């Protein structure tokens, strides 16, 4: 019996102790009409060797590609120690640390995690993780609405991750909260004062600023933050934690700093893994601490005055406040916060900064090289971090298909998300890419495009205004 240790003798003596003749009798309170037949769709049991082989075959079927897709999930080196430690049974198979004295390992680690995230984002407080970046944005929206008190409308630029916007919408709309879209600047690819003017004097609870934004472009965060604060709005900064090795922390944006910082924690030690598990982080200013959703760990003392850690501010949470809780979240992404804390400890300040710089350098090299190819342009003029939008004179889907055949995933086709951009590709290069990888990308791109164009020759002049690279 897989994972059931009982011997025949155990079963008999247990039934005797209960005072019943069979296990079947233990189900006698279930109304007979409800008792189900067999599980008809369930296959036969496999042992570990057999299922291991099946999954190995399926993994090999999927293979490995040279990946240039980013768009919210980024390939980074994960030190071997990260998962060897996070995979220890003591972390892996523990529950939420309800019994603090028997969970000091998890609790101290989460306190360290909170410290690292608060410092990275320049905020006072962090929670112990949410599900992912997209749902963290939704929680930040709910928090801003609670804090603002009068408005239930939030300004969200169109250059915030499109799926995050959909997730936030799905999670908050039933509470009568409206997400109002701010158009992006078609030249710069960022959010600009002109588009915000239109919303001046309107009653909004918050402005969301994603840095870098979905296009990889860097926003003028100081200007945007000051504008929002002048309009009595809160500022929600949606940030990439690796980029924060180099970029100004939300807490330092503008005169007063953003009020809430959220993001996708995946770049801190979580493998891409087809989409999860990752984790969301949410940090905020002290004034909002009691509005924060999810678990929070605090430092306190024990009976002897010795420092120790426990879950705190529980009066906000569903198990105490039920219908009045700040969020419904219970289980979060604890093990991923664990990996993030270990990951950040192994990198340290200088390591994180180096990773960020290498990402930026590689993406810059890729864009520079790609833009030398006839028919390739970078469409936005504002500076970027480790991702950029390139346009072609042929459908992106065709380019990507041809690249896939060469073992390369060339980026994300933006056509379904931003059809107005034409044949636009979002491409990313992190520190994991070598100069050779980038050459492979550009050589293939050039070959694919030139084959496409090898009908009537058409030489195009490249506009200089947009091609900084």
């Amino acid at each position, binding site marked *: 019996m897989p994972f059931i240790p009982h011997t025949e003798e155990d079963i008999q003596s247990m039934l005797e102790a209960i005072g019943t003749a069979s296990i079947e009798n233990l189900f006698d309170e279930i109304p007979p009409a409800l008792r189900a037949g067999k599980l008809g769709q*369930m296959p036969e049991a496999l042992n570990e060797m057999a299922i291991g082989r099946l999954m190995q075959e399926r*993994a090999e*079927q999927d293979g490995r590609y040279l990946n240039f897709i980013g768009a919210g999930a980024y*390939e980074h080196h994960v030190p071997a120690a990260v998962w060897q430690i996070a995979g220890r*049974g003591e972390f892996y198979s523990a529950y939420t640390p309800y019994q603090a004295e028997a969970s000091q390992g998890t609790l101290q680690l989460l306190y360290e995690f909170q410290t690292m995230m608060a410092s990275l984002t320049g905020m006072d407080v962090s929670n112990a993780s949410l599900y992912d970046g997209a749902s963290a944005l939704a929680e930040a929206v709910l928090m801003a609405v609670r804090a603002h008190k009068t408005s239930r409308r939030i300004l969200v630029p169109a250059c915030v991750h499109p799926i995050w916007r959909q997730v936030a919408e799905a999670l908050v709309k039933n509470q009568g909260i409206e997400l109002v879209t701010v158009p992006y600047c078609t030249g710069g690819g960022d959010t600009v004062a002109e588009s915000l003017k239109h919303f001046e004097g309107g009653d909004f609870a918050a402005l969301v600023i994603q840095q870098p934004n979905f296009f990889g472009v860097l926003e003028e965060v100081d200007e945007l933050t000051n504008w929002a604060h002048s309009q009595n709005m809160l500022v929600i900064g949606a940030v990439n934690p690796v980029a924060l090795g180099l970029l100004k922390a939300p807490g330092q944006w503008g005169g007063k700093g953003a009020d809430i910082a959220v993001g996708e924690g995946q770049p801190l030690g979580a493998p891409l893994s087809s989409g999860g598990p990752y984790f969301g982080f949410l940090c905020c200013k002290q004034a909002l601490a009691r509005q924060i959703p999810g678990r929070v760990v605090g430092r306190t003392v024990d009976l002897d005055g010795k420092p120790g850690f426990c879950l705190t501010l529980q009066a906000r949470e569903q198990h105490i406040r039920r219908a009045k809780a700040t969020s419904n979240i*219970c289980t979060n992404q604890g093990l991923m916060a664990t990996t993030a804390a270990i990951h950040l400890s192994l990198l340290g300040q200088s390591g994180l900064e180096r990773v960020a710089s290498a990402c930026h350098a590689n993406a810059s090299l890729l864009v520079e090289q790609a833009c030398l190819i006839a028919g390739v342009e970078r469409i936005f003029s504002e500076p970027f971090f480790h991702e950029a939008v390139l346009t072609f004179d042929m459908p992106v889907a065709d380019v990507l298909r041809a690249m896939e055949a060469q073992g390369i995933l060339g980026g994300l086709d933006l056509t379904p998300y931003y059809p107005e951009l034409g044949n636009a590709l979002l491409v990313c290069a992190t520190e994991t890419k070598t100069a050779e990888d980038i050459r492979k990308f550009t050589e293939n791109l050039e070959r694919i495009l030139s084959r496409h164009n090898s009908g009537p020759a058409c030489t195009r002049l490249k506009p200089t205004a947009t091609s900084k690279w």
Partner: protein
Amino acid sequence: MLIFELSRPGRKNPSQAPAPQPEASGIPAHLRRADKPLLPEVSEMDAVRHYTRLSQKNFSIDTHFYPLGSCTMKYNPRGAHQMAMLPQFLARHPLAPETTGQGVLACLYELQEMLKDVTGMAGVSLTPMAGAQGEFAGVAMIRAYHVARGDTARTEMLVPDAAHGTNPASAVMCGYTIKEIPTDHDGNVDLAALRAAVGPQTAGLMLTNPSTLGVFEQNIQEMQKIVHEAGGLLYYDGANLNAILGRVKPGDMGFDVIHVNLHKTFSTPHGGGGPGSGPVGVSERLLPFLPVPIIAHEDGRYRLVTEQGLPQSIGHLSAFMGNTGILLRAYAYARMLGGEGMRRVADFATLNANYLMAELKKAGFDIAFPQRRASHEFIVTLKGLKEQTGINAMDVAKRLLDKGFHAPTTYFPMLVPECLLIEPTETESKQTLDAFVAALKEVLEEAHANPELVKGAPHTMPVRRLDDVKAARELDLVWKAPAA
């Protein structure tokens, strides 16, 4: 010692960082960070030693019996972990074309189909990232269903008072007001109160079964009728499905939507707080509203169905495909059990719970519902002990830690005073259960003979009892470097 206290300025780990770059010239100075974030500067060995030592301060399933009620702390097979961590699975980008993910999608699709079978539902979406998000998805679908029919008067969700806190909190996130339904003295939902509560304002009922009191709702068919006749839909909180796997199917009982906690019933790890996974299953009438993506299998190919294919969907609940790696673990586990093994889980989870209940009764503990069978769990109430000795449920829980056992769930459900909610799971042997009974008996004796010993517990943990009032009053949530 915190990792920050081990830190020394200038200590670096060059083997974990790329080569230094020339100035990042493309990033304007005013957008750059001027300060240094507070990240530890330690050697690789320092970090490994620090976190390994921290891990040793935890109780876990791999180290201790962990009978935490409503949490199903069963063994998490190591094989499932290894299979989900195959390098190709880990390397795959969530937005990579479906052509590059037929292997992983095959696993997910088959899991989706197996969950349909287990729940008796017409469709399943794997995307919710934990039980509470599954609840949100379920209630949002109920709302979308009513709204699609133009039935906008249904503003109220019925929730039994024994329900998990996430139930009312999730319904509120969907814009509903909550009406609580009381429990009767047998631990069932009070039928008369339910009848009195339903009406044209009723959007639905969120029922947990087996309930958090550890018993099967005996009037479930009647409840189903009452709510459906009033025009409401039925939500099944299937967070705790361990005792009914292959025994009853919520779909057969007329339920419209269910969520399942894979991090309980399907043995995926809890990771010290998560990640979990809370797939939702629905009946025919809610199929159009399922959260996306879901996985389809057509002409021998697997593909993701998104809002284009399911225009009435309640939408995306995560940026990509939920907690895929957790789904892979659940898949491997389900394949190792097979249909027979699933049913056996219910048999032995129930056997263990009833055996433990019987033994504790013999040992002098008060069972909250002694007239009932235990499902996968049951409740001991220490109200009598507290009256006699002043020792409460928390004291007993802490003393159990000293005896090498993780404590059961305490003070939940709130309706039973001084309660211990005990869930042994099927993966524990009779010998472990006997040792646990012996430990609880010892604590009971100590409570009478030496109450101070129990009040002061734990004595053998890395810390003694912590002051959680101080923690909440004098918030210390992040470490600050002492002023130089």
